[in-house]
Protein backbone atom coordinates (compact mmCIF):
# COMPACT_ATOMS: atom_id res chain seq x y z
CA UNK A 1 0.00 0.00 0.00
CA UNK A 2 1.08 3.51 -0.80
CA UNK A 3 -1.06 5.32 1.74
CA UNK A 4 1.81 7.00 3.51
CA UNK A 5 3.50 8.37 0.43
CA UNK A 6 3.03 11.96 -0.59
CA UNK A 7 4.35 14.41 -3.15
CA UNK A 8 4.37 18.14 -3.73
CA UNK A 9 4.89 20.11 -6.91
CA UNK A 10 5.57 23.83 -7.06
CA UNK A 11 4.26 24.98 -10.42
CA UNK A 12 6.12 28.23 -10.99
CA UNK A 13 5.88 28.09 -14.78
CA UNK A 14 2.87 29.17 -16.81
CA UNK A 15 4.10 27.34 -19.91
CA UNK A 16 1.76 24.76 -21.40
CA UNK A 17 4.40 22.03 -21.76
CA UNK A 18 5.64 22.43 -18.21
CA UNK A 19 2.15 22.58 -16.72
CA UNK A 20 1.25 19.43 -18.67
CA UNK A 21 4.29 17.64 -17.24
CA UNK A 22 3.27 18.73 -13.75
CA UNK A 23 -0.32 17.58 -14.11
CA UNK A 24 0.67 14.25 -15.72
CA UNK A 25 2.95 13.48 -12.78
CA UNK A 26 0.33 14.68 -10.28
CA UNK A 27 -2.56 12.65 -11.73
CA UNK A 28 -0.33 9.60 -12.19
CA UNK A 29 0.77 9.86 -8.57
CA UNK A 30 -2.78 10.27 -7.32
CA UNK A 31 -3.83 7.20 -9.33
CA UNK A 32 -1.08 5.28 -7.51
CA UNK A 33 -2.37 6.45 -4.15
CA UNK A 34 0.30 9.08 -3.57
CA UNK A 35 -1.19 12.08 -1.77
CA UNK A 36 -0.37 15.02 -4.02
CA UNK A 37 -0.35 18.80 -3.63
CA UNK A 38 0.35 21.32 -6.40
CA UNK A 39 1.29 24.79 -5.21
CA UNK A 40 0.83 27.47 -7.90
CA UNK A 41 3.00 30.55 -7.75
CA UNK A 42 4.18 33.33 -10.09
CA UNK A 43 3.45 32.38 -13.73
CA UNK A 44 1.98 29.08 -12.61
CA UNK A 45 -1.02 31.07 -11.33
CA UNK A 46 -1.96 31.78 -14.95
CA UNK A 47 -2.73 28.08 -15.38
CA UNK A 48 -5.43 28.17 -12.68
CA UNK A 49 -6.99 31.44 -13.79
CA UNK A 50 -10.36 31.01 -15.53
CA UNK A 51 -9.57 30.17 -19.20
CA UNK A 52 -5.88 30.29 -18.22
CA UNK A 53 -5.08 26.67 -19.17
CA UNK A 54 -6.33 27.20 -22.71
CA UNK A 55 -4.28 30.39 -23.08
CA UNK A 56 -0.95 28.88 -21.94
CA UNK A 57 1.88 29.01 -24.47
CA UNK A 58 4.73 26.61 -25.22
CA UNK A 59 8.08 27.32 -23.52
CA UNK A 60 9.90 26.72 -26.81
CA UNK A 61 8.88 26.82 -30.48
CA UNK A 62 5.64 28.64 -29.69
CA UNK A 63 6.13 30.68 -32.89
CA UNK A 64 3.37 33.19 -32.13
CA UNK A 65 0.97 30.36 -31.37
CA UNK A 66 1.67 28.30 -34.47
CA UNK A 67 3.82 25.81 -32.54
CA UNK A 68 1.13 25.50 -29.90
CA UNK A 69 -1.49 24.88 -32.56
CA UNK A 70 0.63 22.09 -34.03
CA UNK A 71 1.21 20.48 -30.64
CA UNK A 72 -2.50 20.69 -29.77
CA UNK A 73 -3.35 19.06 -33.09
CA UNK A 74 -0.81 16.29 -32.55
CA UNK A 75 -2.02 15.72 -28.99
CA UNK A 76 -5.55 15.27 -30.26
CA UNK A 77 -4.41 12.89 -32.98
CA UNK A 78 -2.43 10.80 -30.50
CA UNK A 79 -5.21 10.91 -27.89
CA UNK A 80 -3.14 12.75 -25.31
CA UNK A 81 -5.27 14.50 -22.70
CA UNK A 82 -5.49 18.29 -22.83
CA UNK A 83 -4.37 20.32 -19.82
CA UNK A 84 -7.96 21.35 -19.07
CA UNK A 85 -8.96 17.67 -18.85
CA UNK A 86 -6.03 16.79 -16.57
CA UNK A 87 -6.95 19.65 -14.20
CA UNK A 88 -10.43 18.11 -13.82
CA UNK A 89 -8.91 14.63 -13.38
CA UNK A 90 -6.55 15.96 -10.74
CA UNK A 91 -9.51 17.34 -8.79
CA UNK A 92 -11.44 14.05 -9.22
CA UNK A 93 -8.51 12.03 -7.91
CA UNK A 94 -8.11 14.25 -4.87
CA UNK A 95 -5.00 16.21 -5.85
CA UNK A 96 -4.90 19.30 -3.65
CA UNK A 97 -4.49 22.49 -5.67
CA UNK A 98 -3.19 25.45 -3.68
CA UNK A 99 -2.81 29.02 -4.99
CA UNK A 100 -0.04 31.17 -3.53
CA UNK A 101 -1.56 34.11 -1.69
CA UNK A 102 1.46 36.42 -1.92
CA UNK A 103 1.90 36.14 -5.68
CA UNK A 104 -1.86 36.48 -6.22
CA UNK A 105 -1.57 39.78 -4.37
CA UNK A 106 1.59 40.77 -6.26
CA UNK A 107 0.07 40.02 -9.64
CA UNK A 108 -3.27 41.48 -8.65
CA UNK A 109 -5.26 38.29 -9.20
CA UNK A 110 -8.49 38.25 -7.13
CA UNK A 111 -9.70 34.86 -5.93
CA UNK A 112 -12.79 35.20 -8.14
CA UNK A 113 -10.47 34.78 -11.13
CA UNK A 114 -9.22 31.40 -9.89
CA UNK A 115 -10.92 28.19 -11.09
CA UNK A 116 -13.11 26.27 -8.63
CA UNK A 117 -10.82 23.18 -8.72
CA UNK A 118 -8.41 25.12 -6.49
CA UNK A 119 -9.37 24.25 -2.94
CA UNK A 120 -7.07 26.46 -0.95
CA UNK A 121 -5.15 29.74 -0.94
CA UNK A 122 -2.01 29.52 1.13
CA UNK A 123 1.50 30.71 1.78
CA UNK A 124 4.96 29.26 2.05
CA UNK A 125 4.02 27.69 5.39
CA UNK A 126 1.20 25.72 3.74
CA UNK A 127 3.64 24.49 1.12
CA UNK A 128 6.32 23.56 3.64
CA UNK A 129 3.88 21.67 5.87
CA UNK A 130 3.12 19.42 2.90
CA UNK A 131 6.67 19.32 1.51
CA UNK A 132 8.35 18.41 4.79
CA UNK A 133 6.16 15.28 5.00
CA UNK A 134 6.60 14.33 1.35
CA UNK A 135 8.87 11.85 -0.38
CA UNK A 136 8.88 13.66 -3.71
CA UNK A 137 9.07 17.44 -4.07
CA UNK A 138 9.29 18.94 -7.55
CA UNK A 139 9.80 22.51 -8.73
CA UNK A 140 8.56 23.12 -12.26
Amino acid at each position, binding site marked *: *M*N*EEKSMTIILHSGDLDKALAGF*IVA*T*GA*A*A*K*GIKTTIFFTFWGLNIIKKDGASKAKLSKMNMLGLGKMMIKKLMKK*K*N*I*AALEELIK*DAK*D*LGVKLVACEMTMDLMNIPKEEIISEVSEIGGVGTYLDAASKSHINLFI
Partner: protein
Amino acid sequence: MENKEIKISTMGLNCPKPLIETRKALNKMQPGQILIVEGDHKVSLKEIPQAIKDLGDEVLSISEQPDKWIIKIKR
Protein backbone atom coordinates in the same frame (compact mmCIF):
# COMPACT_ATOMS: atom_id res chain seq x y z
CA MET B 1 -25.64 -4.39 -7.51
CA GLU B 2 -22.58 -5.08 -5.35
CA ASN B 3 -21.54 -8.10 -7.38
CA LYS B 4 -22.04 -6.55 -10.76
CA GLU B 5 -18.93 -6.32 -12.90
CA ILE B 6 -18.04 -2.89 -14.20
CA LYS B 7 -16.35 -2.51 -17.57
CA ILE B 8 -14.41 0.46 -18.85
CA SER B 9 -12.58 0.93 -22.12
CA THR B 10 -9.38 2.93 -22.46
CA MET B 11 -8.91 1.98 -26.11
CA GLY B 12 -6.93 4.60 -27.97
CA LEU B 13 -6.12 6.63 -24.86
CA ASN B 14 -2.55 7.70 -24.17
CA CYS B 15 -0.52 8.11 -20.96
CA PRO B 16 -1.63 8.84 -18.25
CA LYS B 17 -5.34 8.51 -19.10
CA PRO B 18 -5.71 4.69 -18.90
CA LEU B 19 -4.30 4.82 -15.36
CA ILE B 20 -6.44 7.82 -14.39
CA GLU B 21 -9.66 6.32 -15.77
CA THR B 22 -8.95 3.01 -13.99
CA ARG B 23 -8.45 4.79 -10.67
CA LYS B 24 -11.51 7.00 -11.14
CA ALA B 25 -13.62 3.90 -11.81
CA LEU B 26 -12.22 2.07 -8.75
CA ASN B 27 -12.85 5.09 -6.52
CA LYS B 28 -16.57 4.85 -7.31
CA MET B 29 -16.75 1.12 -6.53
CA GLN B 30 -17.45 -0.84 -3.37
CA PRO B 31 -14.90 -3.29 -1.93
CA GLY B 32 -15.39 -6.70 -3.52
CA GLN B 33 -16.68 -5.35 -6.83
CA ILE B 34 -14.91 -6.34 -10.05
CA LEU B 35 -13.58 -3.89 -12.62
CA ILE B 36 -12.64 -4.97 -16.13
CA VAL B 37 -10.40 -2.53 -17.97
CA GLU B 38 -9.61 -2.94 -21.64
CA GLY B 39 -7.08 -0.88 -23.53
CA ASP B 40 -4.31 -0.85 -26.08
CA HIS B 41 -1.73 1.51 -24.54
CA LYS B 42 1.30 -0.79 -24.12
CA VAL B 43 3.02 0.92 -21.17
CA SER B 44 -0.24 1.04 -19.20
CA LEU B 45 -0.41 -2.76 -19.31
CA LYS B 46 2.64 -2.77 -17.03
CA GLU B 47 1.77 0.35 -15.04
CA ILE B 48 -1.88 -0.28 -14.18
CA PRO B 49 -1.26 -3.58 -12.32
CA GLN B 50 1.53 -1.91 -10.31
CA ALA B 51 -0.71 1.06 -9.42
CA ILE B 52 -3.50 -1.36 -8.41
CA LYS B 53 -1.16 -3.14 -5.99
CA ASP B 54 0.07 0.22 -4.64
CA LEU B 55 -3.43 1.02 -3.42
CA GLY B 56 -4.14 -2.45 -2.08
CA ASP B 57 -6.60 -3.59 -4.73
CA GLU B 58 -6.19 -7.00 -6.34
CA VAL B 59 -5.31 -7.87 -9.93
CA LEU B 60 -7.31 -11.03 -10.75
CA SER B 61 -6.12 -11.59 -14.29
CA ILE B 62 -4.31 -9.99 -17.18
CA SER B 63 -4.93 -11.10 -20.73
CA GLU B 64 -2.99 -9.89 -23.69
CA GLN B 65 -4.37 -10.10 -27.18
CA PRO B 66 -2.73 -8.96 -30.41
CA ASP B 67 -4.61 -5.66 -30.55
CA LYS B 68 -5.65 -5.07 -26.93
CA TRP B 69 -5.24 -6.10 -23.32
CA ILE B 70 -7.78 -6.78 -20.58
CA ILE B 71 -7.06 -6.38 -16.86
CA LYS B 72 -9.50 -7.73 -14.30
CA ILE B 73 -9.34 -6.05 -10.89
CA LYS B 74 -11.03 -6.70 -7.56
CA ARG B 75 -11.68 -3.56 -5.53
